[in-house]
Structures are given as C-alpha cells and as structure tokens.
C-alpha cells in the first residue's frame, strides 16, 4: 500500500533522513520508534506528500507521488488520515466543524462525521469548542477527524505523547481496535502497544532505520543497541506490572 524507496532528505545541509526503505502492506500496523529528532515525523510528512524528498520515491497504492502535481497529491491525501501529537484542532471551530473540515471539499456527508464522532464517543459534545475539552477528548476529536475521511491508511504521530497518563490508555484502546481492520503507521514510544498491536516494529536512529521486524522477535532477540534499549524498557514495565500483580495476589 505504501512504499518508501531509498528516501534521503537533507535540510539546511544537514542529513535528516538517509536511505530509508519502508513498506506498509494493506491491513498491517507498523510501529515506528526511535529517539527524539531522529526523523520519525519527517517520514510521515514525506509519506503524506507534504515534503518532497531529494532522493527516493514514495509509492502510494501503486502510484509514484513524485510524479504527481501538488493538486493530485492533495487528492491522494484524502485517502490518508493523520492524527497529530498535539491534536492540531482549529480553535475557532466546534468539535463537529473540526471533523467536517476534512470533508469540506469532498462528498460533504454529515453522516460520516457523525459516525466518526460516535465511534470515539464524542457525538454529544459536538457543539463544544476544543478549549472546552480535555486532552484525551481533544485527541479523540483528532482521531474522529482522521476517520471521517474513511482513509485507506492512518498515520499516527505520537498520539499519546502530549496526554496525561490517565488518557493514554483510552487512546491506545481506540487505536488497538482500529488496528483490527485498518492499515496503520504508528509513531509511538508505547512499547507494550507495539508488542500487542504491531505486525512490524521499526527502530530508527538519526535518520536511518537500524532494525525492523515483528515486535516479538525484536523484543526477544534484539540485534541493535536500540533494540536492547527498547527491550529493557518493555521488560521494566512488565516487571513492574507483574510485581504489582504479585503483590495484589499476595494480599
């Protein structure tokens, strides 16, 4: 469905991405992770056609985006959904209007927005403005906005990073349920989520991919320093959880 071939990008003479190859097949959920500033968001931007790479090609549904005009890329983008870390809702529109924004030019169906908002449980609050919502609710609006387009693929750029821990699971749960019948490309640091939901895990460092494979494999036999680090992190959480579970059992 989405293929990135030999993508390289230089910004202000600094190499942001070098020789990235990545394929996301239909129905797959791919999780991308890596330290801050390594180029994760940039990859999403390139996939969406917001940035043109200097080297390499982006193929979406069998079409090379590089060969398309800006207008054609824009049309393609209607088949892609994106959820941002900081929600990016427009403050001057209500919840419903924010969701409708994506449908504004397409086949203006109010129904789709309604479905999307209901699926994240926010139809009741459709008349509120973003400032009247909690962080978790805002992100659910962000998700509804992406879903309203009925996209072929959804990009998630650290959707839980800006949230209070109490809202994180709420969002992860929605993501996990969406993953069952959507193609998703998820940038996140939530390793338990990766382990549970991802078909494939991609580890990145300073502009290049260091390791890629099924999460179970990476977490059990990491082949890179980054892999070891993420495994540690996962184990820490697991240990803590089991410890908590043990204490609970002991009581």
């Amino acid at each position, binding site marked *: 469905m989405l293929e990135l071939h030999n993508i390289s990008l230089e910004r202000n003479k600094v190499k942001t991405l070098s020789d990235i190859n990545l394929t996301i097949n239909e129905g797959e959920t791919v999780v991308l992770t890596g330290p801050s500033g390594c180029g994760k968001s940039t990859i999403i931007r390139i996939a969406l056609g917001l940035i043109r790479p200097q080297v390499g090609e982006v193929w979406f549904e069998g079409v090379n985006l590089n060969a398309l005009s*800006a*207008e054609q890329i824009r049309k393609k983008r209607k088949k*892609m959904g994106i959820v941002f870390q900081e929600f990016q809702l*427009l403050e001057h*529109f209500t919840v419903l*209007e924010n969701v409708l924004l*994506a*449908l504004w030019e397409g086949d203006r169906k109010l129904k789709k927005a309604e479905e999307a908002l209901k699926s994240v449980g926010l139809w009741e609050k459709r008349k509120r403005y973003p400032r009247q919502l909690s962080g978790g609710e805002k992100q659910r609006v962000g998700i509804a*906005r992406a879903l309203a387009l009925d996209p072929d693929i959804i990009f998630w750029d650290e959707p839980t990073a800006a949230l209070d821990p109490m809202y994180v699971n709420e969002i992860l749960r929605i993501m996990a349920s969406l993953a069952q019948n959507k193609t998703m490309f998820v940038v996140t640091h939530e390793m338990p989520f990766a382990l549970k939901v991802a078909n494939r895990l991609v580890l990145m460092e300073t502009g290049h991919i260091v390791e890629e494979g099924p999460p179970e494999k990476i977490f059990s036999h990491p082949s890179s320093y980054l892999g070891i680090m993420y495994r540690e992190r996962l184990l820490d959480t697991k240990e803590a959880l089991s410890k908590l579970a043990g204490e609970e059992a002991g009581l």
Partner: protein
Amino acid sequence: MIEEELLAPLFFLGFDFGTVTYQLRASIDSAIIVTKGGSLVRKGFNTDLASVIILEISLLIVVLLMAGHGFAYYVQRGLDDLVGGKDYQVVAQVDKQETNNFVAALQETYKGREGFRYRVGKVLGDKIHILIGFGDQDLKNGALDEVTKLISPLPGYAGLALLLDPAVLVRGIPSEVYPGLIKEINTWPETRYAAKGPMGLYVVAKERKKLGTIENKLVKVTSPYYLWEVDLKAKTNQEAALIRENIDKILQGKKHWYLTSPIEGVVGDAVRLLKGYSSKLVFNDQIPVGAELVLSNQKLKIGSKPSTQFKARVFTDGIYLTKGDSLQLTGKENAYLLDGTGRLTKKLPGFELESPRKDLEIWQPVTDISELKTSAQELAEKIRQGEDFSLLLRDIEQLAKKQSLKVPDEIKSKLELLILWDRIGKLPTNIRTELADKILDWVKAMPADPLMKLKESLPSWSDEDITRSWRDLESVSQEKFLRVVTTETALPNIEGLVSKPAAEVREDIKSQIGEVVGGVVPLAALAVAVILFWIFTALDHTLWGSYLVMKNNFFAPLWGWLLGLLELSAVVLVMPYDTNMLVKIIYILSGAIGSAFIITLSNRISPINSKSIEAGEALGLSKAELFRQVIVPDGRPGLWQLYNRGKLLSLRRFRNA
C-alpha cells in the same frame, strides 16, 4: 486567464499598464515555476485575494473622501471664517464693540447691490472679521476698486484685505488701460472675473489649476507694455531733467504713462498736504514735465533772461509755483516757457490758479509716530517668538495700513515666501531675527521726527518754503528712478535706459495662502488618514505575507510591492484635491515600498501557526480552503477576516449537500 483574473481590478480602475503588467506576469510565471504544481495561483484563492483588495481599495477611497470632505467641512469652514473661502472677496477688520454699527452701515452702503453678502467671522484679539462678498457682475464692474473708499468711513473700521482665491495679480500696467484689458480677460473661459483692485488688476480663476493658463495669457496680453527705467541716483538734477525731456520728446504723440511711486504713509500725507498749500497752475496746453515757467505782470521779451517774482515748474502731477508767494498771485499774469539756459522761449496762453493757501492749523498727522514705533517693536518681538507667518503678514499689513504706510517690498516679498516655507517646515535659520531687525530698521528710517517739527513750523512758511519742503520730502521718499510705461517698442538711445515688460504677473499672495490652506493642509490630513488606513489594510496583507514567508517564497516582497502599488494608485486616482504629480508618485511609491516592507515583516506582525497549516494540508485542504478555514480565521482581525466570514465552513452547507 489566471493573470487576467488577478489583473481585473487593475483594469477596472483604469490603471495604466505597461511595465507593471510585464512584472506581474513575470512574477506569476516564476511563482508557478517555484511551486512546481502551480498551487500558488489557484482560482479560489485568487478570487478571495482580489475581492479583499477591491474591498480594501473601496474602503480606502471612502476613508479618503470622508477625510477630504470632513476636512473641507470642519477645518476649512473654520479657516474660511478667517480667510473668506471662495464666496467672499474682502475681509474687513472691525473693532469688536462696533460690530453692529458696522454691519448696519455696511448693509446701508451696499443696499440693493446684486450678489452682495457678508458674514460675521472670527474674533481675533479685539477685532472681529467681517467677510464681504459681491456678485460676479458687480466685481466685474469695479466693486473691489471702490471697496476701500466705501468701507473705510464705516464705524469701527480698522482695515481690510482682499481675499481673492485663486487669483492672479497684474501690477505695473497703467490703470487707464484696465477697462479694455478687463473686457478681454472676462471673455476667457478660465476667468471667473477680472477687476481693478487696490494693488492692481486682479484676475480670479474659475479653478486653481487654471491659474497657470491665466498667467500665460496675461503675460501675452500685457506684452505690448514696456517699462522704461532710468536710474537717476548718480545723476544731477540737471541731467535728470534732460533725460526726462528726451523721453518726452521721443514719446510725444505715443501712448505713455509716467510712474511716480506713490509716497505712502506719514510722508505721503505731508507731501499731499504741502502740495495742497502750494499754488497749482492749470494750463490748457500740454507742457512737458520738467519744464520751467515764468509768470509776470509785465509783457516780457522772448529770448530775454528775466528775473521775475514768480516761477513755476511742471511736475508729473501738475504745475506748481516754485518761486514767489501765491497770496500775491492773481491768476491774470502772463506765462512764459523757459529753456534750459533760462531764456524765454514762448508765451503760453492763460492759466487758472488752484488751491490757495489754506489754514495750516488743520493738519494732523494720521498717527502718532511713537505709537507706530511701539507697535513695530511688538511686532518684531512676535516674529522672534515664532508667531505664524500668515498671521504676521496680517499684522504687518494691518500696522502699515493703519498708518497708511507701504510695507517695504523687501520685507513683503520675504514674508510671502516665508509663509509657504514655514508651512512646510523649511524655514531658514536666523530668518526670524533678520526679519525682526529689518522691521526695526524700517521704522527707524522713517522721517518721523522731522515731520513733527515740520508740523510745528508750517504756519510761518512761504510758498517757496512749502514747495521746497515737499520736493525735499518727495526726493527722500521717492525711488530714484525715472519710470515710464509705454507701448513704444523702439528703444531710444538714452544712457542708462532699460526696457522691460511692464506687467508683473503672478499669483496673488492671498491666493497663495489659500492654496496652502486649501491644498497642503488638507492634503496632510488626507495623508494621515490614508496612511493610518493603509497600515490597517497592509496588516491584513501580512496574513498572506506570513504564508508566503513560511513557504520560503522569496517573491513575498515583490507581491507586497505590487499590492501597495496597486492600492495606492487606485487611491491617488480619486484624490479629491488637486495634487501635483510628484506628491502622487510619492504616495504610490511609499505605499509600494511600505507594503513590501510590511510583507517582509509579516511573520512578526501576524505570526501564523505553521502546525495548523500543516494539519490543514495533511487533511488535503486546497490552498483556498487553507486560507479560508485556517489561516484567515486564525490570523489578525481585519477586512480579510470580515470578507472571509461568508466563506467559513458552515453546517448549513453540509445539510444542503
């Protein structure tokens, strides 16, 4: 077609194309190249931008017209109370407490005169300004010429000034030829009326911008009149008389008018008075100016060199006794003409004797000279302290008028310039001190004290003394030139004689003030209005500018420049005042440069949220929609936002779909 759409407002406003079109097209082309897909120039967005620009221009024009008319109504009206506007030609200063009496007398004086009007204007100090206007026909018939004569005896009168605007003043042409000139000038389409006034011939234009045409035409119609001038300063009286005789001979039978500069003020009063006591002889024959006559009871022999009791001399304004006592003159004497060597050349026919000696006790100088000096000192002080020059000119003229003095040309011409300089803030340093000193010098130079003595000693004087006195006075106060206006073109061979066009044609000083008041001042007010409003709209453009800058579009300043050029050009087209080309160009260029500058600074003035833009783009919004839904509603409030309201996403439109 895209370009056409963008240029449509320019066509609509009748904008002059050429290079602008070329630049615009070039920049559109390059913008398309830069953005590869041509996303910069797409229909929806262009329509929005063009609409906003048209909206801005329309509002700018409304603001401009409002400022212009508001100015004309509020400010100009206040000024008109002082300077009369276009409906009044004369402003009379009147003692405040005499206002009612003056007005009653004024109405009585001009009762039944068609078009006569007056308005009681502003009070300045203890004087009130009464504005007086006449019908055009009345003006053509000489209403201005007689206004001083008619108004000055009215109660409370303290002086008057003409306020002819816009007007050209012609000086130096003999008033005898005015009627013919006026008749011709009144047939010109540019002329509102031409009239004789105290300073010369006034030609009032229908429109200010026609003044130039009128000036040119006046130079042409007055071109047959030449002024012959001989500097007599280095000549003896004998030589001067000879020159005069020569000129007389040459101009015999041809049109010519000697100019004696009128002696003004206290000196003038004295001279006129003294002449009134001198015996004036009136002959039927024309006798050349400068000639000497002998009067005798006996019959004298032609060719002889007599010594007689009575002698007389021909002056430009008449023949006066220069020797003997007029009380002993009977008017029955024989009169003979003398040649240069003192011999009798010809017997003249009889004469009449005018103005026998009157009672000398009556004469009082019009003013007390010490009072005049005090006023002058006060005036000098005001000048030093920075009083407005147009007020100063009024003061000075008032002072001079009151004393029936003439403001020296040197001071006056300086002042005329200074008013304008002062208004535009270009006053040379030290000019005020210099001017104040000049005025004090002028007052010092006035023969004040000798005149007072003269008054005391008059009763004991003989005719000879009196004649000598006025001649002395005349010679100290008169310019040392022999001047004659003539239509003769052939220049005679007289040493030191210069010929030049007689007419001095230029815009009247009051009219110049009118121009300043009616032109520069409102223009300044307009400029402020335009600049403020333009900044407001330019801020609007920063929304767009911010976007361009964010997109690293290096054409942003060029777009800003074009936008400013376009908007200010449209405004300049409808400016309600006659503005000269340079000012217009300055408006346009400063608009363009300012716009370019503001657009360059856009992201500081109206920062836009690049994340919202990215979100909009990621959702697949077109550029037009990005502006309508994200950038404009998110940005600074302004016209664009107002206009954009109708474009905002609305639920209603979803339901209908």
